[in-house]
């Protein structure tokens, strides 16, 4: 067999529908595996959860990160090549709008896959929590020249106190020296030149001061966080912020999400044991197991997801091309 005809044979195989079908089904089966095993856990997790040998096997076969495994990516790359070569072969034989639509549709899948690859390789994501009134320089997080100040955060509620919207009012200093004032809401991210900032989370920060071994230690902590008081005994002060404290009920229960009756619950732990517990109103100072604690105030923090993903533009272009292909393929008049 000459080299040339061999090459042609390989190309025929690569562009064949048989391979295409096989790849569709294999990709489906492989993708389903990733939905059954928890993804992206440390190797030890699988050995504990599934047993020593099955756990090792799962990690060995990359079933702990199916969608980034070499065999899944190889299949996807083959699928792209198959779609490309098959479409190129068909470009020459397009007698009517419908068949042209079909080729465009298939080529759009390649644009979408290109968007996915660029997303996977080049996207930068980071999650930050910023207290209201505070600023954060985003340079260290991979967004040089940007800094973000949170002016206000609020939660809007329906009548039944179900959350309606989470809103952060921010001011963004951009790398080119502009200052943008904007409200960020769920489903309404801030967008500036490819940078997007999303409303992702929120919570309360409690502010105050504890005196630990004669030293004044100011704190501003998210509810549930701790201060070490005596590391040798594993003794810590934990702080819980209760926005609407119920005088009659359980200490950590909040009657509503609104700060109608704000209290700080300070708990002294030794290992898992509760040594002392005090409920403090704003401005109050109490001793908690010998450590004086002052509760001076509270504020919201907002959790924001910041990202830059150059793949999205290409992806959306692929979607538009796909829609165009669909319209041509299905709505163009049929040629008899």
């Amino acid at each position, binding site marked *: 067999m000459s080299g040339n005809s061999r090459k042609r044979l390989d190309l025929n195989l690569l562009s064949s529908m048989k391979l295409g079908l096989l790849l569709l089904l294999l990709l489906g089966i492989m993708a389903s595996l990733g939905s059954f095993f928890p993804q992206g856990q440390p190797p030890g997790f699988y050995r504990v959860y599934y047993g020593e040998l099955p756990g090792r096997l799962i990690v060995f076969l990359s079933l702990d990160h199916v969608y980034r495994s070499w065999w899944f990516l190889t299949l996807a790359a083959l699928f792209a090549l198959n779609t490309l070569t098959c479409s190129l072969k068909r470009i020459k034989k397009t007698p009517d709008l419908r068949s042209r639509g079909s080729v465009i549709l298939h080529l759009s899948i390649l644009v979408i896959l290109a968007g996915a690859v660029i*997303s996977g390789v080049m996207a930068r994501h980071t999650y930050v929590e910023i207290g209201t009134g505070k600023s954060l320089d985003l340079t260290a997080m991979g967004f040089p020249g940007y800094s973000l100040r949170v002016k206000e955060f609020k939660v809007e509620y329906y009548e039944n106190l179900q959350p309606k919207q*989470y809103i952060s009012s921010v001011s963004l200093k951009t790398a080119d020296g502009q200052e943008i004032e904007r409200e960020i809401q769920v489903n309404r991210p801030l967008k500036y030149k490819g940078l997007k900032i999303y409303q992702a989370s929120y919570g309360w920060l409690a502010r105050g001061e504890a005196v630990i071994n004669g030293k004044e230690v100011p704190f501003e902590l998210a509810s549930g966080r701790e201060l070490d008081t005596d590391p040798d005994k594993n003794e810590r002060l934990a702080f819980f912020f209760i926005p609407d404290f119920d005088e009659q009920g359980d200490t950590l229960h909040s009657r509503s999400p609104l700060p109608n009756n704000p209290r700080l619950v300070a708990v002294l732990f030794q290992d898992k044991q509760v040594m002392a517990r005090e409920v403090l109103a704003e401005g109050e100072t109490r001793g908690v197991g010998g450590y004086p604690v002052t509760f001076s105030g509270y504020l919201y923090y907002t959790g924001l997801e910041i990202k830059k993903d150059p793949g999205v533009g290409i992806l959306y272009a692929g*979607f538009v091309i796909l829609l165009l292909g669909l319209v041509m393929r299905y709505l163009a008049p049929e040629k008899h």
Partner: protein
Amino acid sequence: MEANFNLLAYIFLLAAVILSLISLWRPGRLISYMVQASLILSFAYLTLALVLRSIAAGRLPFANLYEFTLLFAWGILLFYLISRRVIKSDLLAALVAILVVIILSYSNTLSSGPGPLMPALQSVWLQFHVITAIIAYGAFGLSFCLAIIYIIKEKGYDSPDVNNLPSLAKLDNLLHWSVAIGFPFMTLVLITGAVWAEEVWGRWWGWDPKETWALITWLIYAAYLHARKTYGWRGKRSAIMAIVGFLAVLFTLFGVSLLLPGAHSYV
């Protein structure tokens, strides 16, 4: 009111199941007519229930798995009624009625309060996402029933209703027609979902189990269409693929919600 209409829809559906089974055993024009009337009434009451729910909640019924389950049932009935223009069969009516009864029965186990929309769902993309899903899954539901009928007919059971069915080739064409309608809408479900996820979470694809299974569904039906077009895979083999495709739909909607929790927690 809404609950009453829901109940009426359910009762007429149960009537359609029983009547269609009787008609398979003792066929007759009157009973066939009653089967159709029950299904049309059931569809009408389900539509009314959905309209009333939208009015009560002040939004379209697109907010949770309970509401989507009703829409799913509604979509399958809609495609069945459209298919009546080309195929009139009590066997098909029986299969559709049984499928929809199962779906509606399951919906009764889900929490059904018409609460307001949570922030993540306040997006125009939700509307596109759900509407395209109703069409895609409705068409796939019909294709599933047609595929079963195809296999029954091919086995050569001798009964009046099976004998009265259109030819195998025509059944196969009809099956292909419903998959070919569902598939572009399934594609739109994936696209609108991706755009929405990009707007709400900042990641257009995250291999969440629900996303993954929607993609698997798409891959199966893509394989169906390509195998048929290129290799002329018709008949039983393609009927089986259509059945597998719809099992993937059911798993995406119900299996994933029960077994594989992820970011798609509301549906």
